[in-house]
C-alpha cells in the first residue's frame, strides 16, 4: 500500500519535472518559435529586482480583487442557497436567476458593470459572481443530502424548521461546501483576470494583455505564471481543508 503510494508520488514528481524540462527545452531551442521563452528566462525575469515593484503592484491589485470576490461570492451564494432552502417558493426563481447570470459570458457582463459600478470594481464583481454560482449550486444540493431517516428522526423529536437546518441540513452540506471552496478558486482568478481585461487601471490581467499586445514575451509568461502559481497554492490549501472536512463528517 505505502509503497504503491510513494511510487505514484515519485511518478508524479517525474511527470511534473518532465513538463518543466520540456518547457525549458522548447524555449531554449525555439521549437515553438520566439514567443515560447525557456522556463529559466521567465524565472530570471520574475526575480529581477527592478521588476519586483511592477509585479508587486499588479499582484496586490489582482489578489485583492480575488479575495473580495471570493469572500463576497461565497457569502452571497451561501445566503441565497439558505434562502431557497428555507423558503421553498422562491427556489425555482432563484435557480433560474443564478443559472441565467452564470450563462452570461463575463465578457458581456463587464461593460455593464463598468457603467453600473466602475472599472476597478468590475474584476471583484465578476469573480464574485462566478464563485457565488459554484457555492449556490453546491450548497443547495448539499442542504438536500440529509437522509430521509434523519429527517424523520428530527420530525419525531419535534424539531423546528430552524433547528433542522442548523443541526441537520447545514452539517450534511459541509462536504459539498468544502468542495465548492476548492473548486471556486480557479473561477475566482478567472473572474478577476477577465474583469481586468476590460479596462481596469492595474492588475495582472492588464499586465498580461498589454504584454501580449506589445510582444513583451517574458513579461507575458511571468504574469501568467504568477497567477497560475497563486491559484494552485490556494487550491492546494482548500483541498486540504476539503479532506479534513470529509474525514470529520464521515
Amino acid at each position, binding site marked *: 500500500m505505502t509503497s504503491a503510494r510513494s511510487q505514484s508520488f515519485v511518478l508524479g514528481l517525474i511527470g511534473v519535472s518532465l513538463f518543466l524540462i520540456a518547457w525549458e527545452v522548447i524555449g531554449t531551442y525555439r521549437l515553438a518559435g520566439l514567443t515560447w521563452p525557456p522556463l529559466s528566462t521567465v524565472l530570471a525575469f520574475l526575480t529581477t529586482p527592478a521588476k519586483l515593484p511592477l509585479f508587486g503592484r499588479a499582484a496586490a491589485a489582482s489578489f485583492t480583487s480575488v479575495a473580495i470576490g471570493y469572500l463576497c461570492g461565497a457569502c452571497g451564494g451561501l445566503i441565497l442557497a439558505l434562502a431557497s432552502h428555507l423558503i421553498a417558493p422562491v427556489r425555482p426563481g432563484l435557480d433560474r436567476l443564478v443559472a441565467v447570470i452564470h*450563462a*452570461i459570458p463575463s*465578457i458581456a457582463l463587464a461593460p455593464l458593470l463598468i457603467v453600473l459600478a466602475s472599472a476597478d470594481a468590475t474584476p471583484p464583481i465578476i469573480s464574485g459572481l462566478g464563485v457565488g454560482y459554484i457555492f449556490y449550486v453546491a450548497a443547495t444540493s448539499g442542504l438536500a443530502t440529509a437522509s430521509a431517516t434523519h429527517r424523520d428522526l428530527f420530525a419525531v423529536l419535534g424539531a423546528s424548521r430552524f433547528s433542522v437546518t442548523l443541526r441537520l441540513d447545514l452539517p450534511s452540506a459541509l462536504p459539498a461546501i468544502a468542495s465548492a471552496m476548492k473548486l471556486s478558486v480557479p473561477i475566482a482568478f478567472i473572474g478577476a483576470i*477577465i474583469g481586468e481585461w476590460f479596462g481596469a487601471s492595474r492588475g495582472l490581467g492588464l499586465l498580461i494583455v498589454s504584454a501580449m499586445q506589445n510582444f513583451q514575451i517574458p513579461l507575458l509568461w511571468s504574469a*501568467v505564471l504568477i*497567477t497560475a502559481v497563486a491559484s494552485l497554492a490556494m487550491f*492546494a490549501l482548500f483541498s486540504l481543508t476539503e479532506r479534513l472536512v470529509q474525514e470529520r463528517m464521515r
Partner: protein
Amino acid sequence: MTAVVSISNLLRRYWAVALIVVGWQIWVSAAGLSSIVLPGPLAVATDFAGDPLSYAGPAGLTFLVAIAGLLLGFLLGAGLAILSWSSRILNGLLTPLGLIFTSIPVVTLIPIIARLLGYDVRTVVAIVSLICFFPAFVYVGAGLRALPPGSDDLFRVFGGSQLQRFVRLVLPSAVPNLMLAFRLTAPEAVLAAVVAEFLMGTDGLGYLFRKAAGEFDTERALATSLIATITSVACFGLALAAERRVLRRWT
C-alpha cells in the same frame, strides 16, 4: 386554463430574472440615462429587432468555432485519458499534471496561445480545445475507473480478454462521466471563444462586441452580449439534452 397554468409556471421560474429586467428599464427611464451610457432593455431589443441578421453571421461563426474546439478538446482529452488508463506509468506521470491544470485559471493562457499561434480563427479553435481538454481528460479518466460493482470479477470469471474488457466494460463505464464533462464544459467553450475573439480581434461575436464598444454603440454591444448569452445557453441546453438522452440509455 392551460395557458394560465403555463404563465404561472413561467412566473414561478423567471420572477427573479423578470424583476431585474423590469427594474433595469425603470431605472434607465427614471434616471434619464443617455443610451451611450446605458440603454434600457427595450432599446437593446429594438436595436436587435431592427437588424437581427447582422448578428447571425458572427453568432454562427462563434458557435461553430466553440463546437469545433469542444469536440477537438474532448477527442484529445479522452484519447489521452485512455492512453493513460492503459499504462500505469503514463498515468502516474500525467495525473498530477492534469490536476495542476484543472486548478489554475486556464483562461489566462489565452494570450499566450494567441501569441504562439498568431491571431487567427484557428487559434480560437485551439484555445477552446485547450480549455475543454483538461475537464475531458480528468472526467473521462475517472469514468474509465468507475466500473459497475462486481463487473470486473464477472469479466474475469467469464474469461473475457483484455480487449473485450476494454470495449465492453471500461469504455461504456466512462460514458456518463464523458457526458457530464460535456455539459459542464459546453458553456465554457462559448465563453472561451468569445473572449479569444475579443482579445485578438478575429471575426465572431467577440469581435462584434469589441467593435461596438469601441464605437460607443452601447445598444449594439449589449445586444451582442445578449446573443452571446443565448449562444452559451443554447450550447448548455444542447449538451444537457444530449446528456439526459444518453443517461436514459446508459444507466
